[in-house]
């Protein structure tokens, strides 16, 4: 009876240990999902900007053909063939390939690393090896019982009386151990990331704002054209087109991509602080993560709009 009671207590304690993980499972999963979306949005802004710089270089090449004097490879044994524009002697433009697939590949790569980091945080929280440990222990105790039966009846009884509570205890101990190494890993990683993320988020924000500005200037052009068209001919069709352009520009102007990255940093800061505290509470972290999710959704929508518009042109 005593061993049955002990086993039940240990199972309850095992379940209680699992709850520590479930406390941070949701905020970390949401943080990871929002970070992945921010990464996609940055990649979309980059792809749109890459199309713009390609168009700009083509225009420059046609306007100043002598600048198209840099050819890399392009022989039968070469590794590739890239035609580039030489630096502009009259400006800051350092030139570069005439066809660009990514204008900020290092930023995109860095953001991808952050997104993978957030995914790893989530993987750590979800990693649960207690099932595997329990299977191993069950096999071990079954084997021990088998051996005991070979040794004699008296040993079989003793082994069975011992193995049930022992397995539960060992699984519980592992559960506790696992929780502690998970928590340690999360604390250590978020602490280290805190030394890098504020700077990274500020830089990504500045780059994202510039990439966003590229797309916004196009919307201003469209707005201007339609404004003039309506002023010249106040037809219902021209009014609709004018208001549509105004509305698209308005939506784009409401979005400030750098705010998403500031929020990403803030949410991570709160997450790290919550993990550091002895009495883990995620109230503030959840609030900041929710704000991050809302801002990211806006940015994703607008970045996808830009991407679609660029593809249509």
């Amino acid at each position: 009876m005593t061993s049955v009671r002990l086993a039940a207590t240990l199972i309850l304690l095992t379940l209680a240990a699992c709850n520590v993980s479930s406390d941070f499972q949701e905020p970390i999963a949401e943080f990871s999902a929002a970070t992945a979306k921010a990464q996609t949005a940055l990649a979309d802004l980059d792809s749109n900007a890459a199309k713009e710089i390609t168009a700009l270089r083509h225009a420059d090449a046609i306007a100043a053909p002598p600048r198209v004097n840099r050819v890399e490879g392009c022989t039968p044994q070469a590794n590739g063939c890239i035609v580039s524009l030489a630096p502009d002697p009259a400006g800051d433009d350092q030139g570069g390939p005439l066809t660009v697939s990514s204008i900020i590949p290092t930023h995109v790569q860095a953001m991808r690393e952050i997104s993978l980091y957030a995914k790893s945080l989530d993987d750590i929280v979800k990693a649960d090896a207690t099932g595997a440990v329990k299977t191993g222990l069950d096999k071990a105790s079954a084997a021990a019982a088998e051996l005991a039966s070979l040794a004699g009846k008296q040993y079989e009884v003793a082994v069975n009386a011992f193995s049930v509570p022992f397995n539960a205890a060992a699984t519980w101990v592992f559960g506790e151990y696992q929780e502690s190494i998970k928590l340690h890993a999360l604390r250590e990683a978020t602490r280290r990331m805190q030394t890098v993320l504020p700077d990274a988020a500020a830089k990504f924000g500045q780059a994202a704002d510039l990439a966003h500005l590229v797309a916004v200037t196009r919307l201003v052009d469209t707005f201007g054209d339609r404004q003039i068209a309506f002023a010249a001919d106040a037809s219902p069709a021209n009014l609709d087109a004018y208001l549509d352009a105004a509305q698209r520009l308005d939506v784009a102007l409401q979005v400030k991509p750098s705010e998403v990255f500031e929020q990403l940093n803030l949410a991570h800061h709160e997450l790290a602080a919550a993990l550091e505290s002895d009495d883990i509470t995620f109230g503030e972290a959840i609030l900041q993560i929710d704000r991050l999710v809302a801002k990211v959704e806006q940015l994703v929508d607008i970045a996808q709009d830009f991407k679609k518009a660029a593809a249509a042109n």
Partner: protein
Amino acid sequence: MNGRPTYDEIVRKANTEIAKFEGMIQQASREIDAIIARGAGHLSPDDQAELKRLNQDRKTLTASMRRIALITLEQLDKTDELQQLVASIRAVRADLEERRARIVRFARTAEDLGKTLESVSDLATRIDGIREDVSHLDDPAPKRG
């Protein structure tokens, strides 16, 4: 350090130029709005021509702003600071991944231990079976007459 502008310096310079163009675009927009207001729905051919010209000027200004943004983005991406940042982020992630792998490895060890004990038990059962099969050999052999 290496004489090249830092990330922040590049951004600051670009933002100053962008602000200058923003001022000029606002000025062009004000002139456009004034002509439209003056025409009150009936623009003269001269006003229409002037609007087209101003709109074209505004487009030239937005194109310049776009060019600054694009060239700045390219410059920012090539800064040493950014490369260092990627390396630092990658190091944090690699460490985290290693810790996750450790949890999984520990579980595998427990499973392996279980399997090993199972094999030992199998072997013991077999040895016991063999012992029973050959137990009669221990009996004293009948003496030949």
